[in-house]
């Protein structure tokens, strides 16, 4: 092709050709775009933090005295902080924005570029991890103000944030799967409802020792139970591998399930066109 000066480009510019950008570069580019959109979409981020703050404070006021009187040595503020944080970060994702990409055709524009399909999803999810980690910080700050101290130290705080963000990512996979499958923002936003059984059929409000009957059985099957126990152990007990490993496994199990659905939905959408 002859490169000559035109109104559409200088001689030099017209010789520029596309080339594969690389998986990491592509994923970071998509993540960067998703993160740039967050400040313009604060209504998707601030309410969960408000809800987390609200339940954190109300739960302590409602159950603190009751539970601490029943279970010796229980620091209910530290106990309920992970519940508040999971409330704050679960379901917070760019999936609703992603569904808008599906609707307004921008996903097609991304799919037309030479980047790997998975980079598009992974880039969004990488942004979700960053947002979830950022949302964890103010709730942790409130916990510190209310007297929570981490037995596992600063490294424990960082692992706590990483676990919470990883859970957020694992759960966000469901939202992306629904976004790709339905292209419906309402359906995506209702993904959070999926979390309700996970959150309430577990040790969100009282220790496992206080659960009995069918609720104890269900809590034993609920991955959030192990996640909460792992998170709590960092604050209350220090480094307890027997509690952290099940927490990581719980995240991996939910993540594997949601990501399988998510990537299957992506393949389905691409094949449907």
């Amino acid at each position, binding site marked *: *092709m*002859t*490169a*000559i000066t*035109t*109104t*559409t*480009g*200088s001689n*030099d*510019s*017209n*010789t*520029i*050709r*596309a*080339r*594969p*950008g*690389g998986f990491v*570069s*592509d994923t970071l*580019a998509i993540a*960067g*775009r998703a993160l*740039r*959109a967050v400040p*313009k*979409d604060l209504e998707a981020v601030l309410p969960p933090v408000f809800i987390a703050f609200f339940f954190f404070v109300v739960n302590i006021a409602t159950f603190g005295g009751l539970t601490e009187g029943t279970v010796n040595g229980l620091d209910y503020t530290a106990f309920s902080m992970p519940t508040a944080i999971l409330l704050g970060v679960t379901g917070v994702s760019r999936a609703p*924005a992603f569904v808008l*990409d599906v609707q*307004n*055709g*921008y996903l*097609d*524009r*991304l*799919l*037309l*570029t*030479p*980047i790997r399909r998975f980079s598009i999803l992974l880039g969004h999810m990488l942004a979700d991890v960053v947002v979830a980690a950022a949302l964890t910080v103010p709730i942790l700050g409130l916990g510190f103000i209310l007297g929570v101290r981490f037995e596992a130290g600063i490294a424990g705080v960082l692992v706590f944030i990483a676990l919470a963000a990883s859970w957020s990512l694992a759960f966000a996979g469901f939202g992306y799967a629904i976004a790709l499958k339905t292209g419906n923002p309402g359906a995506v936003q209702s993904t959070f409802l999926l979390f309700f059984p996970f959150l309430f059929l577990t040790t969100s409000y009282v220790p496992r020792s206080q659960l009995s009957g069918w609720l104890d059985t269900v809590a034993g099957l609920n991955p959030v139970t192990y996640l909460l126990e792992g998170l709590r152990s960092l604050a209350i007990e220090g480094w307890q591998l027997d509690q952290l490993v099940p927490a990581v496994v719980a995240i991996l199990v939910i993540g594997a399930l949601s990501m399988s659905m998510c990537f299957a939905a992506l393949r389905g959408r*691409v*094949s*449907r*066109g």
Partner: protein
Amino acid sequence: MSAITARQLTRRFGDFTAVDGIDLDIQSGEIYGLLGPNGAGKSTTVRMLCTLLAPSGGSASVAGHDIVKDPGAVRLRIGVALQEAALDPAQTGRQLLGLQGRLYGLSSSEVERRISDLEQIIELGDALERRIGSYSGGMQRRLDLAASLVHNPEVLFLDEPTTGLDPASRIKVWEEVGRLNRELGMTILLTTQYLEEADALAGRVGIIDGGHKIVEGTPDELKRKVGTDVIVAGVEGPTDDACVALRNVAGVESVEPHADEVVITANDGAGTIGPVAIALDAASIRVRSLTLRTPTLDDVFLEATGSRIQSVDQPDDSEDVSLATDDSSGQTPDSEEAFR
């Protein structure tokens, strides 16, 4: 050298066959127009060729690469402006072009150079720094075109590039498409439902209907197949009577009824229109209008399918109405005499 080839390219959606065994051979540097009404299969064909949609059957290659076996290589070499501008309203125009360039592997400096050059096409001025959500439809289409050009593609797909644009913007897109082809040798496949657009831009036209490619050739070749001249008689009452009255008129080559019109082809239109008027009068057929013009691509479509493109899909935006002439095709004829 072929830039786009397709062999028996087919796409089915359940029981519905949207594209039914289309063959294409589009040479490098060519502008090829895929013309047809809504639902003809144009966009589905483009979506397959640009790797957005997997074919149900057949094969195709673009820029020398198979669209199924090597879609990544195809994507590196093509630019696509889809029927609906595919933009993110939350980004600014500059951010969108920048991300687009990065996803095509361009360095930051290359992206800046390309944006600087593309600004001349899109003429958005300061709006390039504004969020795309605030753009008008025309601005969005222009930005979409720029996004498809940021990496200097070898093959450009334009799916109904001017639908929804005002006449001035439409002409500007035509000029730019012509320039991309003429000065950069870019191969361009454009789909359109506007006859005028296919006639003005495309070196060759493939007319598609019901998922089939019906005819193909240069606009002049196709129009010559219809005849030298076309006489359109708008009649009141059944068109069958008019057809019977006109079949044996000297100079008439063919007579086709269409809605409340009769379309007559003739080698000598000027010499035949008089006898046609006399024959209709002799048969006591009330004539609303009698028009002589050269054939249009709509006449080609009519002859091939028995219906008109514009009757299937009348433009619904005001600028399209303003473009339409007083012939039923909506295409400006090369020459026209009207008896009213």
